[in-house]
């Protein structure tokens, strides 16, 4: 079956409301539940068979997640680095060719537009992956710089391979030397007549890789992965499982844990990097960048909010909950919450009003939960914790173990 690909030049773009990813045929074969969701232009799978089993693949063996719908931009040209320095809050010069770095970018008010991953593909060529479409902002930022900005979302197929056996699977697949790849490194391999790029990073807080290839070779890549992974517990993983994995790892999601600044109608509904716990991504010493002045001011005067991790008593997920102080005064709201099968705790990310959220602070979380159609409410004691809920040493080990 031949599928159309999303293409902004096509006049009949509206005839396909949503497009199959280059991995669609393989996803379809694995998708026992036959349920599809959509992710931007593409069909995506919430759960192939059982979200929990897929979650455990990510923590116990390895899971494969189709990343293709991620928005991807390529930045190149003589001024690529200075351009990136203006765009990003972090010092991009520290991301050497062949390295990957996480970053956020802000508007002039120091409010986060989006977060994403920067791939320094080769000297002066970057790929930025993000959740939201950014072409307008990225082109605006070109002013004064000699750079080319193109969107390449649909030209690159990508898979995340995440979990403790992921390195072993890639080794078995014939990617020689992959075990030497350090966290946030990139490597290139010949793959059936094309180039396969592999980066060691992910959205699960565990050992994991992302694989990047041209869409024509997408199915071959999937097949080779699953052939190699069969004896190492490989499984297709849907977005429900990925969401669980990222919450445990303390990773934020645009539109969930913060509102992209370009979308915010109401005052006070955006967040600065400081307010998202991302101070480590703001480098004032690198010179000018969007939002610098505002962020400097915030640093002096203090922030309005703090994104924190909560360890909540009991076992009821605190989805959409209000957070209160011990004497039941409003302190903030939960942004993401779940029962963590790996931490064996009810965990949450929450946005609190300052001065709340110092590690160790004791709070109350108001949880509504339903049992046999009856709604119940608990005020569950909770603590602000400093560490992420899941952070195994194998995430950083090079070479990683086989499991």
């Amino acid at each position, binding site marked *: 079956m031949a599928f159309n690909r999303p293409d902004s030049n096509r006049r009949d773009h509206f005839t396909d409301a949503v497009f199959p990813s280059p991995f669609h045929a393989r996803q379809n074969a694995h998708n026992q539940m036959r349920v599809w969701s959509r992710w931007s232009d593409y069909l995506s799978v919430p759960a192939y*068979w059982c979200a929990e*089993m897929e979650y455990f693949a990510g*923590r*116990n*063996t390895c899971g494969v997640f189709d990343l293709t719908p991620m928005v991807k931009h390529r930045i190149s040209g003589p001024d690529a680095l200075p351009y990136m320095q203006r765009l990003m809050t972090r010092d991009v010069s520290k991301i050497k060719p062949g390295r990957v770095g996480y970053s956020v970018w802000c508007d002039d008010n120091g409010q986060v537009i989006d977060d994403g991953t920067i791939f320094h593909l080769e000297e002066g060529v970057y790929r930025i992956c993000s959740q939201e479409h950014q072409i307008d902002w990225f082109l605006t930022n070109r002013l004064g710089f000699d750079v080319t900005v193109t969107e390449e979302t649909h030209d690159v197929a990508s898979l995340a391979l995440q979990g403790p056996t992921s390195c*072993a699977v890639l080794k078995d697949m014939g990617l020689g030397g992959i075990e030497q790849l350090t966290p946030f490194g990139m490597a290139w391999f010949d793959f059936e007549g094309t180039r396969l790029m592999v980066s060691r990073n992910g959205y699960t807080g565990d050992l994991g890789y992302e694989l990047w290839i041209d869409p024509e070779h997408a199915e071959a890549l999937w097949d080779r992965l699953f052939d190699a992974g069969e004896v190492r*517990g490989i499984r297709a993983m849907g977005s429900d499982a990925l969401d669980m994995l990222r919450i445990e790892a303390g990773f934020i999601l645009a539109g969930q844990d913060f509102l992209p600044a370009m979308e915010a109608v109401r005052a006070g509904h955006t967040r600065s990097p400081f307010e998202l716990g991302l101070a480590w991504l703001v480098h004032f010493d690198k010179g000018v960048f969007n939002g610098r002045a505002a962020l400097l001011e915030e640093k002096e005067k203090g922030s309005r909010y703090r994104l924190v991790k909560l360890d909540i008593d*009991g076992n009821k997920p605190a989805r959409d909950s209000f957070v209160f102080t011990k004497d039941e005064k409003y302190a903030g709201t939960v942004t993401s919450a779940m*029962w963590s099968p790996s931490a064996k*705790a009810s965990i949450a990310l929450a946005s609190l009003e300052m001065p709340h959220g110092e590690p160790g602070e004791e709070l109350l979380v108001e949880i509504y939960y339903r049992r046999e159609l009856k709604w119940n409410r608990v005020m569950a004691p909770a603590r602000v914790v400093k560490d992420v809920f899941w952070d195994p040493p194998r995430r950083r080990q090079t070479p990683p173990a086989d499991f």
Partner: protein
Amino acid sequence: MSRKYDAIVIGAGHNGLTNAAYLAKAGLKVLMVEKNEWIGGATVSLPMYKDWKYSNCSYVCSLLRPEVYRSLNLAKYGLQVVPYGGSVTISQTGDIIGNYVDPDVTRREVARHSPRDADAEVRYGRDIMRQCRFIRKFLLRTAPDPTSFKPRDLFEMLHLYKETMKLGEDVIYDTMRFYTMSISDFLDEYFESPLLKAAHAGSGIIGSALGVMSPGTAYVLLHHAMGDVDGNAGAWGFARGGMGAIAGAMHDCFTDHGGETVAGSPVHRIVVKNGRVTGVALENGDEYLADVVVSNMTFPRTFLECMDEKDLDAAFLKKVRNFKIRGSSGKLNIALDGLPDFPALRGNPELMHADMHLIDSIERLERAYDDWKNGIWSQDPYIDMLIPSLTDPTMTPPGKHFMSVFVQYVPPKVNGQDWTDEQVQAFGQTVINQIDEYAPGFKDLILHAEIRTPRELEDEVGLTEGNIFQGELTMDQLLFNRPIPGYHQYRGPVRGLWMCGSSTHPGGGVMSAPGANAAREILADLRKPNTVPEGWLDD
């Protein structure tokens, strides 16, 4: 080295470890003494063959109290419990009945055997869940003393009464019957398919010296259904790295809180002076002192093997001797060169990850029990087996497998005589032959097999007669009857002596509840702040 401790825990089974960890967490100076060179008791993974890992005794986890898991921070100490999802029963004719992760798939699978039964599963599930919800409230809680007028016991009796009343009239009647019925009779009230009944009945006899038609086995089923994995009631999982990972995490927690362990020499005597405990003497001659001594050993082993009978009352000793702790189980741990081929499961790979049972009918289960009564191992045994290596990549080299094979029934003695090595081998062969009938060529895949009868379980783990639960789980030995009336609150008959093993309430399985409850009682007696969770969170 100082030899005086605040408390000594005898036995590093998972309950001893739980107990010791809570005592250490409360600030006590705790010594753990274990007879084996290794820790874990029946929750253990020993290196046996090349780089294979085994779960030598217990093999799946569900009962472990989530409150203990969390409060001892076992996740931080590296414990991961991974659900495997589902089960399947394979009959001699090659028919199967699968229990899948997806409820609708399962319903259609049952409907293949009986459309009525597919519906009846809903009612059955509801009734089991009612009983689970009832019993779970009493697991992490000391059982009340119905004869005592102490305010605390009156309160606990009232709690028991209130919870019972909450069930509603019909369910109270059902509950009374449930605790005394046979699993066979119980299942007859719901189902008609022989294979489905057999599939459910297995959990009614695991570890029990009773048959599917014996009264009391309905409760044994409940004992296997009352746990959960991440809130999925009745689900079971593997401890990643084998069951020894549970003991390992607990031990790390214990050590982190300053606990010390001496392993490799059994306790020879629990030393009593002037009617109170003063410490322990090991077989190697070392002695350690403490005013609190906690035994993780079985009830009979504690009093009949490690104490001077003269220190104990005659009536008490008689009750200890009469404690029902009959061994009935065996186990094979097998290293496989590849994945066995079960023709009945071809095209159904998901079920290879599941808990596999080889059985057809209630009658066949009962005949397996007849052999046990006759003093021999079942010639046509009930087999409960899993291939953890399909789920857990840490167990074997890739493509190779570990198979855990649990067997009912295996008597503590063969025709009244001690097991001989030849008989142990013959028992193993019976089991291997049985599996080979369902998976032709299975025998040729075997690289190594560890064969365990009650003899091995008693010699290695110290499980009296090889009973896996440290005592039969029947009404006369449950709640305030466990191990015996009057001694159900973890206190022994001598001052300073405590019990924390599965012989105490709420019984066997990798649950940690006895160890935790005992720690709570000890800390209360010592007037220390409580570090032990109580009750049940989910309601």
